[in-house]
C-alpha cells in the first residue's frame, strides 16, 4: 500500500474515531460534568460562608479535577480529528514529496503512530495523574502525549524536507498528481466546504468582536458577586450567582463549538472532494454521502447554537447531525477500501 492510500484511509479512520468520541462525550459527559462543576462551585462558596478554608480548598481541588476531565476529553476529540485532517492533507501533497517510496511509507507510518499516541496520551492524563512521575506537575500520560506531538513534528519535518527537494528540482519518488474529475460530488464538496469555512470565519469574527470581552468581564463580575454573597451568607444569592456562571459558561461553549465545527467540517468537505476519485462507489451513492455529510455539517453547529434557546432537544438534533457525518464518512471509507482492494487485485 502506498503512503498516499495509507494516509487517506488512516485519516478518514481518525476523523471517524474523533467524531464518535465527540458524540459520546457530548451525550454522556458534557452536561453532567457542567452540572457537577456548578454544584461544587456552590459547595466552595458555602464553605467560604462557613469560614471553612480547608473545605474551600477541597472544593476547588474537585473543580480542578472536573475541568481536567472535561478539558482532556475535548482535547482528545480535537486532536483525533485534526490529526485525521492533517493525514488527508499529507495524502494530497504526496505527489510533490521527492523521497523514495519506502521512506514516504515509513514517514506515513510514523505520522499515524504519533496521531494515535497524542490523543491517547491526552485522554489518559486525567486517569493517570502524577502516579510514579518524577516531575512536579507533568505525569506519564502528559509525557506520552508530548512524545506523540514530537513524533508528529518529526514526520511533518520529513514531509517538508521531501517537498523542499521537489521544489529544488529533485523528482525521485514523485507520483502523478491526484486525479480530479470535476464531478458533481467534487464541486459540491469544494464549494460547500468553502462556504462552511467562510460562515465559520464570520461567526468567529462576530463572537470575538461582540461577545468575547463581554463574556470575560461577565465571568469576573459573577465570581466577585459569588464571593460577596458568600461573605454575606446569602444562600439564594450564591445559588443565583452559580446559575449565572453556568449560563455564561454554556454561552461561551456553544459559540466556540459552533465556530470551530463550521470551519472543521468545511475543511473536511474540501478534503473529501479530493479523494472522490478514490471512492469506488456509483455516482448516485457518492452524491448521497455528499448530501448527508453537508447536511450534518450544517445541522450540528446551527443546533449547537440553538441549545441556548431551545435547550436539550437542540442538543439532541446537533448530536444527530454529528451521527450523519459519521455515517457519510463511513460510507466514503468503504468506497476507498473497495478502491484499494480493486487496485491491489489489479497489481497482483
Amino acid at each position: 500500500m502506498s503512503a498516499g492510500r495509507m494516509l487517506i484511509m488512516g485519516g478518514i479512520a481518525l476523523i471517524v474515531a474523533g467524531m464518535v468520541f465527540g458524540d459520546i462525550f457530548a451525550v454522556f459527559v458534557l452536561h453532567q460534568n457542567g452540572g457537577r462543576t456548578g454544584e461544587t462551585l456552590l459547595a466552595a462558596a458555602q464553605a467560604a460562608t462557613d469560614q471553612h478554608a480547608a473545605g474551600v480548598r477541597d472544593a476547588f481541588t474537585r473543580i480542578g479535577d472536573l475541568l481536567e476531565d472535561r478539558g482532556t476529553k475535548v482535547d482528545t476529540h480535537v486532536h483525533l480529528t485534526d490529526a485525521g485532517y492533517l493525514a488527508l492533507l499529507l495524502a494530497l501533497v504526496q505527489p510533490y514529496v521527492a523521497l523514495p517510496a519506502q521512506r514516504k511509507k515509513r514517514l506515513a507510518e510514523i505520522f499515524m503512530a504519533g496521531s494515535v499516541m497524542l490523543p491517547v496520551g491526552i485522554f489518559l492524563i486525567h486517569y493517570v495523574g502524577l502516579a510514579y512521575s518524577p516531575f512536579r506537575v507533568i505525569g506519564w500520560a502528559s509525557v506520552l502525549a508530548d512524545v506523540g506531538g514530537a513524533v508528529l513534528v518529526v514526520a511533518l519535518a520529513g514531509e517538508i524536507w521531501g517537498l523542499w527537494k521537489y521544489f529544488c528540482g529533485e523528482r525521485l519518488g514523485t507520483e502523478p498528481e491526484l486525479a480530479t474529475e470535476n464531478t458533481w460530488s467534487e464541486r459540491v464538496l469544494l464549494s460547500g466546504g468553502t462556504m462552511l469555512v467562510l460562515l465559520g470565519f464570520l461567526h468567529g469574527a462576530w463572537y470575538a468582536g461582540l461577545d468575547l470581552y463581554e463574556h470575560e468581564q461577565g465571568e469576573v463580575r459573577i465570581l466577585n458577586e459569588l464571593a460577596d454573597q458568600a461573605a454575606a451568607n446569602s444562600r439564594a444569592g450564591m445559588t443565583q450567582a452559580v446559575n449565572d456562571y453556568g449560563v455564561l459558561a454554556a454561552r461561551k461553549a456553544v459559540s466556540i463549538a459552533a465556530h470551530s465545527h463550521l470551519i472543521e467540517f468545511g475543511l473536511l468537505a474540501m478534503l473529501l472532494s479530493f479523494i472522490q476519485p478514490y471512492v469506488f462507489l456509483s455516482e448516485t451513492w457518492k452524491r448521497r454521502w455528499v448530501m448527508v455529510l453537508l447536511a450534518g455539517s450544517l445541522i450540528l453547529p446551527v443546533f449547537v447554537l440553538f441549545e441556548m434557546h431551545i435547550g436539550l432537544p437542540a442538543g439532541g438534533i446537533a448530536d444527530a447531525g454529528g451521527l450523519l457525518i459519521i455515517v457519510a464518512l463511513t460510507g466514503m471509507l468503504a468506497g476507498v477500501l473497495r478502491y484499494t482492494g480493486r487496485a491491489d487485485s489489479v497489481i497482483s
Partner: protein
Amino acid sequence: MSGARKILIFGGLALAAFGMLYGLHYALFVEHQTLDSMGKSLTEGFVAVADQRQPQAHEAVQAYARIKYNYVRQVDSHSHWIGLAMLMIVLGAVFDRVRFSERTRRWLAIGLQVGSILFPFGVLLQTADGSARLGSVLATAGAGLVTIALAGVAVGFARLRS
C-alpha cells in the same frame, strides 16, 4: 506547480510546523504552570472570603481573570496557526480550480498567507505588556485579510463550470 500553489502549500506546511512547535513548547513549559496558577488564584479568593478578607478575595479573582485572559489567547494562537495552515494547504492543492488570472490567484494566496501569520500573532501580542492595542489591530487586520481572501476564493470556485 504555480507560484500561488507554492505559497499556499509550502507556507502552510511551515506554519503548521511552527504552530506545533509553539504548542509543544507551550504544553511543556507554560500550560501546566498556568493552569496551576489559575486554580490557585480562585482557591485563594474563596479562602480569603472564608477568612473574612474581602479585598484580597476580589484581588485574587482579578488575578485569576488576568491569567485566564493570557491562557485563552495563547491556546487560541496555537490552534488558529495550525487551523489556518491546514486551510492553506487544502486550498493550495486545488488552487488551479479558482477561476481567476494567475496574478489574482497569487494575490489571494499572499493575502491568505500574511493574514494567517498576522491574525494569531496579533492574538498572542494581546498578552504582552503594553502591546494589547497593537495586538488587537494586527489580529483584526489579519482576520479581515483571511476572510476577504477566502471570500475571493469562494467566488473563484463559484465560477467553476462542470
